[in-house]
């Protein structure tokens, strides 16, 4: 069976990201998964056990300052060379900012079609995408070149399938043109040990109704009790209640968790665009007419400052 290249997404803090495990699971349906690790020196060794656990038969590694010290372009050059050499059945990347950017450059380098935000991929290369804020299901295909696809986090359930991957170090041959955008500093702002927003199976979000930045502690407390990530509506972010990287909506992150809890969020289209493919939606809002209730599987009309602390207390009692 042909190789399927999975470009690994990982963080220093948490290691291999869940979307990578989803991609490895998907790749097993399409061929033999090979993981591609692009990062700092030693990155592949640190990640190999986890990648093997989910079925990576081989790991290609390109490591070092040449790869990690510049924005995206060197990574695309390495993957493009690898694609030409191994002729994979498909290339999978995460549908994150960086994943889409590497894929963008690959598409131009290889003169190859590209499909982003894919939630399912059939063996014949037919991809399923969710368009227009979750309102439309699209089936599409790459018609020139191989399936070059970015996979949206939380699209499928990752399942382990143990393999013992051998690591092959790639010779890095990046060009001067790849080194035009230099990364000077990386700053972590993610607070605590909460799961990453787009990958979390539970997301608890606060909106304008939360009232101020300090009150977001309520949202965080409920998120922590449910083992979830914290999100915020655009209104809450614009009002300075919570940082922008946690914004869920049309101009923020798209999330698709098992459970989405909306606190003090009216449910404007802007917000719905980022969360309406969530499996179960729960809402608390003082306005009984708020559009969020049209989506919510369970809604409570009332004062979130009474309801949320009571819910938190009840969860603690049950634990």
């Amino acid at each position: 069976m042909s190789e399927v290249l999975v470009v690994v997404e990982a963080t220093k803090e948490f290691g291999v990201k869940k979307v990578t495990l989803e991609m490895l699971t998907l790749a097993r349906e399409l061929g033999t998964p090979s993981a591609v690790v692009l990062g700092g020196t030693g990155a592949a060794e640190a990640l190999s056990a986890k990648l093997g656990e989910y079925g990576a038969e081989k790991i290609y590694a390109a490591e070092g300052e040449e790869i990690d010290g510049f924005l995206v372009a060197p990574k695309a050059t390495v993957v493009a060379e690898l694609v030409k050499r191994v002729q994979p059945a498909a290339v999978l990347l995460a549908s994150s900012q960086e994943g889409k950017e590497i894929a963008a450059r690959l598409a131009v380098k290889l003169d190859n079609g590209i499909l982003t935000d894919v939630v399912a991929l059939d063996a014949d290369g037919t991809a399923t995408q969710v368009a227009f804020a979750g309102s439309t299901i699209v089936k599409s295909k790459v018609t020139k070149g191989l399936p070059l696809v970015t996979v949206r986090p939380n699209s499928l359930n990752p399942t382990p399938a143990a393999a013992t991957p051998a690591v092959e170090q790639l010779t890095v041959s990046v060009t001067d043109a790849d080194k035009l955008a230099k990364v000077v500093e990386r700053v972590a702002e993610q607070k605590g040990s909460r799961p990453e927003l787009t990958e979390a199976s539970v997301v608890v979000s606060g909106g304008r109704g939360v009232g101020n930045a300090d009150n977001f502690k309520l949202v965080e407390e409920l998120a922590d009790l449910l083992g979830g990530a914290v999100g915020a509506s655009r209104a809450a972010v614009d009002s300075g209640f919570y940082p922008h990287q946690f914004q869920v909506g049309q101009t923020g992150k798209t999330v698709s968790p098992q459970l989405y809890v909306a606190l003090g969020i009216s449910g404007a289209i802007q917000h719905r665009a980022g969360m309406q493919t969530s499996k179960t939606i729960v809402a608390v809002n003082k306005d009984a007419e708020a559009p969020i209730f049209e989506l919510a599987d369970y809604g409570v009309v009332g004062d979130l400052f009474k309801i949320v602390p009571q819910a938190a207390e009840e969860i603690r009692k049950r634990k």
Partner: protein
Amino acid sequence: MNIVVLVKQVPDSGADRNLRSDDNTVDRGSANNVINEMDEYAIEEALKIKEAHGGEVTILTMGPDRATESIRKALSMGPDKAVHVVDDALHGSCAVATSKVLAAALGQLNADLVICGAESTDGRVQVMPHMIAERLGVAALTGARKLTVDGSTLTAERQTEEGYEVVTASTPAVVSVWDTINEPRYPSFKGIMAAKKKPVQTLSLGDLGVAPAEVGFDGATSAVVEHAKRPPRSGGEKITDEGEGGVKLVEFLATEKFV
């Protein structure tokens, strides 16, 4: 500094949006078409750079005739002129072909700096800045929430999932911005009047030296096979809190096995 801002006309994201049943492209004919929201932030950033460092701001749009409305709207914020790439053969173009056309147009405009929104609200594909940079062989600083210009040196704070990265490059470069970077100005009455007289140059594929077979449906590298509306979600149970709302909420979460 010679700055070009990429502006795309998109169907209003606040209204119902559809794909056409005949050719599977975005239905623009029946939609309320507006300037892509994120592009307004790109225009604002370009105008701020021009105000601080001098130069010229040009709007570049690829799109059908009706995109003229969005070009005038963009010009009313203050840019100097616009270039509109319009050609019937472009209908059905994929992202890869679109980047080819925009790169060809940019090649004629000699931009020091190309600024665009991080993504459009219709496709949300987020690939255009890097595709264009790859074709032009220039730097791409993408996902900027802050941009500093010092001579020919650009420094951006790039939003990441974990926080941010500080990235630098020299011009010429492509920069894409998020909506956290600034607060776009509203066009003044004077600006709206002035926009009507600003030069808008139209370019065809022939002017750009791009063959029609490289774009549109013929040159597309991907295709929509089928599409369908997702059934709308229907609201479930809704209760009014009478003192037990929090407990009842947890009871629901427990039946769904989240607690």
